[in-house]
């Protein structure tokens, strides 16, 4: 077999050949490290635009500076999340400002009686029970602590979705390896992040059922 002689040549110790081997090893190493750290995260996430570029700042000013004017607790203790079309319509039945986003909202959603398919940055998977009441009412936390200062943003950032899991990149977290710091000024919301904060604040990570359903 031909390999036999190759091996013997190699065994004889051809210096430059050894270097070539090492160089190739390094090429492989560096290339994979770069693609793994730089290209992979780009490939892993798809980028989506919000259906309407919503201006939180303007609404916050109009609604008296309170998040809970639109994101409120219902009587049964549940949290309303994003406003429904019905709730938006209570002001935006007809154009109020001449803003093009507002016009788009009225044309495409109000007039067609269609809910706006907002992409929720902090959307938790179906197995999670997250209690806004416990955090906001019970522990007196501010919205911005987790969500960042989205209330004063004038434009919605793009939404990044993990192609494998369907998770929003915002909840991405510490488990395994995080790929970058949160860029929204709030916190990551994967389980380990929750547990870390709970451990710090309450002395216990909490029992499973506290957050799972």
């Amino acid at each position, binding site marked *: 077999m031909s390999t036999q002689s190759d091996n013997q040549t190699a065994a004889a110790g051809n210096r430059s050949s050894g270097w070539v*081997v090492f160089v190739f090893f390094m090429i*492989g190493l*560096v290339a*994979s*490290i770069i693609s793994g750290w730089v290209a*992979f995260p780009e490939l892993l996430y798809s980028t989506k635009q919000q259906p309407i570029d919503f201006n939180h700042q303007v609404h916050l000013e109009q609604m008296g500076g309170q998040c809970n004017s639109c994101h409120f607790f219902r009587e049964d203790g549940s949290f309303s999340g994003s406003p429904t079309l019905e709730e938006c319509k209570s002001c935006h039945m007809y154009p109020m400002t001449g803003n093009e986003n507002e016009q788009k909202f009225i044309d495409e959603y109000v007039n067609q009686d269609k809910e706006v398919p907002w992409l929720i940055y902090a959307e938790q998977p*179906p197995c999670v029970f997250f209690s806004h009441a416990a955090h906001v009412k019970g522990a007196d936390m501010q919205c911005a602590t987790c969500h960042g200062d989205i209330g004063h943003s004038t434009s919605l950032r793009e939404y990044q979705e993990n192609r494998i*899991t369907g998770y929003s990149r915002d909840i991405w977290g510490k488990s395994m390896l995080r790929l970058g710091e949160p860029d929204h000024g709030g916190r990551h919301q994967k389980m380990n992040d929750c547990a870390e904060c709970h451990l710090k604040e309450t002395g216990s990570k909490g029992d499973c059922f506290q957050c799972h359903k």
Partner: protein
Amino acid sequence: MKIDRRCFLSLVIGGAVGTTLTPVPWKLTDDIAIWTQNWSWTPEPEDGPSKFVKSVCTQCSGGCGIIARTIGNRAIKIEGQPDHPVNNGSLCPKAISATQHLYGPSRIQGPMKRAGERGQGKWEKISWDEAISTVTEKLAELRTRGKPHSVACISDTDRNSVAYLLDRFLRAYGSPNFIRTPSSADAQELALYLSFGRQGTIGYDFKQSDFILSFGCALMDGCDAAGQMMSAFGDMDKKTRLVQIEARLSDTAAKASQWVAAKPGTETDLALGLGHVMVRDGLYDKAFIDSHGFAFEDREDEAGNAYPGYRSLVRDYSPEKVAKTTGLPEKTIESLARAFARARRPVAVTGFSNPAAASVNQALAVFALNALAGNFQKPGGVFVIDEPDYLSWTEMKIDKTASAGNQQARIDGAGTKRFAHTRYLPNRLPEAINSSQGDSPVQALLVAGGNPLYTLADPQSAKKAFEKIPFIVSFSTFMDETAEQADLLLPHPHFLECYQDVPTPAGMAKTVISLARPVVKPVYDTRHTGDVIIETAKNLGGFIENAFPWKNHEDFLKKTLSDQWETLEKQGYWTDDSSRDNSLEKLFRTSSQRFEFLPRAGFETQGSENPKSKVQTVSLPGDVNELPLVLVPYSTIRISGGAVANTPFMTKTVDANVIAQQDVFVEINPETASEYGLSQGDKATLKTPAGNAKVRVNLFEGIMPGLVAMPAGLGRTGFSDYIAGKGVNVYGLIAPAADPASGLNAAWGARAAIGKA
């Protein structure tokens, strides 16, 4: 420099080492695990604000109040309505799982006409306009041909707005053939009419009674009764006695303070035997009988004919004799009679959710016990609830064709001289059609509920009869056994999608009217049967159109319920406590103005020459030597025996010794089973005069030797793959046997033989 295989190898190794230093393998491992946690084919129910809507379940005639939890336009869950007077929050599994039928594969999703042969299951979607005009044309044609009376209508009730609209429609159109599907209430209501002279239902004040004597009623095993009875049972203290007379240890019997295992079909004898002891020992309410009883003692009519009274009748039913008939110890009969008589508020019940048909005589014999106890219109006793009259009607005029049609005899023979007091004889309809020469007497059949091809006593001959009917319209919500054989499907919405009034359910001791209302928007392209009738009437024009001055069913309800509509909308039910007249003075509307122990009306129709022998029991056809066993049906609340099948959830609760795969198990006493060489789980063939069935054997000590019991509600072909094809329909194995007094089916079982398959 030589680039060889080793260089390539190092590149790969370098790449592999490098990759482990990147997030790639770790993040992928994690993300793939997360992917398994969020599989796109595992549904993620949408969240939103919860609403709770009060309504009423109409899947059986029980009329239980419900609260439906909705999120957006989705009905999530059904729970009991705690303040509802019928069920006080108690619900059976069927009501709880109603959302399964609402969204399930059994639904008919829009109007359709038959595309292939009947029963082939091929359908063509059509528009509602086309559907309604097809009906209109057919009906108009029959009318022009002078045959309006060849139109028949079958419904599961004659007491709600749809039934009234249908009945009104038939009268305006010219047909007397409105037929109600059979139930255990038939004989009961007829007996009520004969002995009280009133049309209506009987109520029992279970909550206040301290001694409930049930003659085979599936109080807690069956539909109709369960909501009321379980709520009462939940409140009962340990002092209240519930006595169940039944040959099989049913769930009601299991919960009873005493289980009296009398032979099936001997309930009448037992009731008369108990009467014997009470009369003999003077343990009866003399005051009541003196002032309100008729035919207790022997009597003579104007012509001087002598008639025996109840006292002479029961003389023949001594404990000794009844012990032989019923298979009970004499002691039991004596002590039971005394316990019943001595209770403060005893009540005897029959014809209320019984799994087996009962005769009118059985109902009369049990009424007599209540009369002896003097418990009419008293707390803990028996109440009479008149037919509902809450729908206020406008008079209507009809044309000559209609009036001629209305005067024709009913096809099922009810109301004829032979069965003068019987209102409907659904079980005689198939025979009437099958025995007719030439064209079927029914040329068009409208089926608005009741699923007759499943619920009639002899489904095989009913199916044969239906084959002869040229035009069958089904209004069924579901693809039930009858819809499968129809020509035209005009699906009615599910009860969670529409308004429907529900009159006082049988068994309720006071008037309670409930309103089912739309909990969600209709899921499919359905239309309320009331709307279809009104629109058809309008299409037919003339007097018929004029008889229906309403826009649609909802408009009709609002107008006719004018006073109560608001209460019903707000509260979900309307009850009438104040106006109830509990006095006995006006209770009896018989010709004697008294409670008739042995009703004159009954004898007249039977035309019996020798009234003494008139307590006929219904004997079963078949040779005892060839068919030594008796097959009896039993109810279980986990399987629905009625028109609407059980839900998949209910089937899921059924034990593996009741249904296993496609097989139904029959219960047999181990002693009987060993006689036939059968052991637990064996496959066997069950033979009755009506047919054969493949079954499996479940040994149960709680059933009388010599009997074979099979659950009702199986052997369906309709609905969906989740429901059809399991077991056999027990009523298909029990040939109808006419009650001579009424013409109603009173076959309480069937002679049977069983052998290893």
